[in-house]
């Protein structure tokens, strides 16, 4: 059997199961909306928006937060990680904070961020920034540490300066790990996005799901989850495409 056939068959089986559960009344629509309701909800959201803002505005708000938070966090984190990889002192000073921050559940320090930064976009984006930073830092640091000694020595023997060694040997070599870290960070940031939209907000896809969930509007919740799912896949693919092109070029 061709692989794509297997995929199609499984998909059909799942849809059939869904239809049977909902249309036969085995499961109330509160728990699992039938396809018709989901479609209506999607159309409603596209046409009328949610709570006085259009669906695209919600999606855009979420995306902007993710991109800015991730971008800033990954950039600063990578710089910090490179410094940590190069300078033992910086590593020793920064390591405790990075190591503490990395596994810390984001929702736990959310309240503190509001207290310090208010209820606007700043606290949300800061949360995402702090979620991306440690992972990127560790990835960059490991990338630097794992550069083959031999390569560096060859460059040195050719008379390259420290800076040239960094630009032409270390950085390209570390790029692969930096990107692995970046993809991990995007995943974490994306997950943290929902947490960040629990704070004062009237927008964002994550907030929409939470708000709809308050009144058990399962139809909106499901549509929102589907949107979030596809957005997540798109983000990951985008980063993968960038990685393939950049790392391939750098690897030359």
């Amino acid at each position, binding site marked *: 059997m061709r*692989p794509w056939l297997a995929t199609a068959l499984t998909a059909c089986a799942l849809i059939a199961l869904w239809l049977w559960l909902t249309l036969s009344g085995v499961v109330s629509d509160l728990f699992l909306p039938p396809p018709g309701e989901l479609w209506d909800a999607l159309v409603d959201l596209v046409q009328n928006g949610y709570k006085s803002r259009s669906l695209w505005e919600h999606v855009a708000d979420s995306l902007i937060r993710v991109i800015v938070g991730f971008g800033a966090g990954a950039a600063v984190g990578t710089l910090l990680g490179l410094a940590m990889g190069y300078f033992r002192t910086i590593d020793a000073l920064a390591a405790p904070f990075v190591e503490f921050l990395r596994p810390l559940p984001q929702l*736990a320090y959310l309240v503190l961020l509001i207290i310090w930064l208010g209820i606007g976009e700043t606290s949300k984006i800061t949360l995402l920034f702090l979620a991306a930073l440690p992972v990127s830092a560790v990835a960059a640091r490991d990338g630097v540490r794992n550069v083959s000694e031999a390569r560096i020595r060859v460059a040195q023997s050719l008379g390259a300066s420290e800076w040239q060694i960094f630009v032409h040997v270390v950085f390209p070599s570390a790029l692969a790990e930096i990107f692995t870290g970046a993809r991990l960070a995007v995943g974490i940031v994306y997950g943290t996005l929902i947490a960040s939209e629990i704070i004062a907000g009237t927008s964002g896809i994550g907030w929409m799901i939470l708000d709809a969930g308050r009144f058990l509007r399962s139809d909106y919740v499901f549509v929102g989850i589907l949107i979030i799912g596809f957005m997540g896949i798109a983000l990951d693919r985008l980063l993968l495409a960038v990685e393939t092109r950049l790392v391939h070029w750098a690897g030359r």
Partner: protein
Amino acid sequence: MRDWRSLALGSLSVATGLIVWYLIGALGLVSTELLAGPADVWAALVDILRNGYRDTTLAQNILATLGRCFAGFFAAAVLGVPLGLWMGRSRMADASLNFVIQFLRPLPPLSYLVLLILWFGAGDLSKIVLLFMGAFPTIATAAMAGVRQVSVQRVQAARSLGATSRQEFVYVVFPAALSMIFTGMRIALAGAFSSVVAAELMAASDGLGWMVFSASRFLRTDIILLGIILLGLFGMALSRALVAIDARLIHWRGRE
């Protein structure tokens, strides 16, 4: 294996952080009602150790959170590793199941928490399922990738030595894939630890996350900070333990 210099610098760093924290409150930069100082947090710790927090002991909360985290992760590992290995070896299994797994992977757990509570109740089960659903795709994908990247040379070498399919799997494929599987498990466990706190946001009656949220309702920033510090410390310990296990079990990772 850190040298003394690193240790000293690290301690200096942490000490500076603590001093800054103390000064923020002492100098009145932020009102102490909104940000408790180190002394208040310490007092809260002592109080909770002695009298508990709302009829729960600190140990109870710690065990509840860690217990949920491990339960969800464990279930995901037990199901995810075999499934991922199978999907790595069987094109059919991959074609049938991978698209579901890849859709679940980027889904933030908090987005479907309400649905899980609806389906599985307001007790521990919904939280454990949440953690399971967060960890499972990562582990399965890692196992799948692990199997796929096993060097063809090694497999052929084993075959030429007369190994059966089963021996080939047990002695060549699985150990080589173990490295990736373990990386996947590390990432999954870290994710589970983060999600368990989010899961304790709704209808929970114990756990470190619950403690933080419950305290936040009455603006007890001292307890909030205590909870954060404990969560951070446990997270670090978990992380370190995993790195240690990794180093001992998969020590040959560099060799290739």
